[in-house]
């Protein structure tokens, strides 16, 4: 699966969970990380068990790691 397809799939997963305005890009030397940027108001729900479950689904799109950019997206 190409990097672009993984990114699009990851963004659909996030949208499906109601994380509006999330963007994803592939980071790392092997593009192994799904780097997610979300508006600051969505951070709280991603910081617990729900976030880990969503991350599992994003990971299944073909990433090794799923991580949140500490610079939030514009809300």
């Amino acid at each position, binding site marked *: 699966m190409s990097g672009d397809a993984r990114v699009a799939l990851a963004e659909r997963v996030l949208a499906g969970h109601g994380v509006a305005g999330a963007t994803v890009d592939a980071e*790392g*030397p092997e593009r192994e*990380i799904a780097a997610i940027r979300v508006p600051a108001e969505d951070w709280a729900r991603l910081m*617990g068990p729900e976030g880990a479950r969503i991350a599992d689904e994003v990971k299944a799109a073909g990433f090794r*790691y799923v991580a949140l950019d*500490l*610079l939030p997206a514009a809300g």
Partner: protein
Amino acid sequence: MVAEEKRERLREILRECGSVVVGYSGGVDSVFLARVAVETLGRENVLAVTGKSDSIASWMEDTARDVAAAFGIPWLEVETREMDDPRYAANPSNRCYFCKTELWGRLTVLAAERGYAAVLDGSNADDVGDHRPGAVAAAEHAVRSPLLEAGLTKAEIRAWSRDLGLPTWDQPAAPCLASRLPYGLAVTPARLRQVERAESALRSLGFRDFRVRHHDTVARLEVHPGELARAAELRDAVHDAVRRAGFRRVLLDLHGYRRGALNEGLAAGQLVQLGSLA
């Protein structure tokens, strides 16, 4: 609570050894082993040796020195040169083998020169099943693992350490700094310094159980799941602190810290598990 049979088994193993050089990193296990060895064999029969290199965090070196001084553990520091080995620097999945070959090679020579009968490491019963290519080097140098042989788990070692008054009893696990670099990303002194600087800054912010994973220009932070919310609250401070260590982008892993996360990309054939060695 540690069963008396396990305590006595550990002392028996140490008495069998007679006189020992302990590979002493300043971590929970090696500090504990050195302390019990001194108690069992006497100071004159124990030498705790710390390998000093760029891959060891300076706070670990400080801990090793301070605890040795406070608890009467004879201590020596030797410089190890694993960074000079291109097989190590290339950071293959068996990187630890080359590092431990250097360490155990130095310590076995030192033990022979000074008349110590055995060289010991701090592997314990919970390490069985982990990816441990360094254990191959230990076996090749006839290094013994008394904590593992006695069946002591990490929890038991922490409990006994607390009984002994060791300040390391609740210290988080602290493998070498190279363990923060994904396999295949070259280990360089500059990258190790970046990791150390970023982790030191996070420690100053109050985080205890975490890793800064170095993905070239990107830092991926793994913090204990219980501290994720706090990391989010302090995101600006965390971001700035890690960026100052020289990373272009700072990411917070949504699964949090877990032991051996960088082994998650390894195929089964690349794993060298302690307990499965011939």
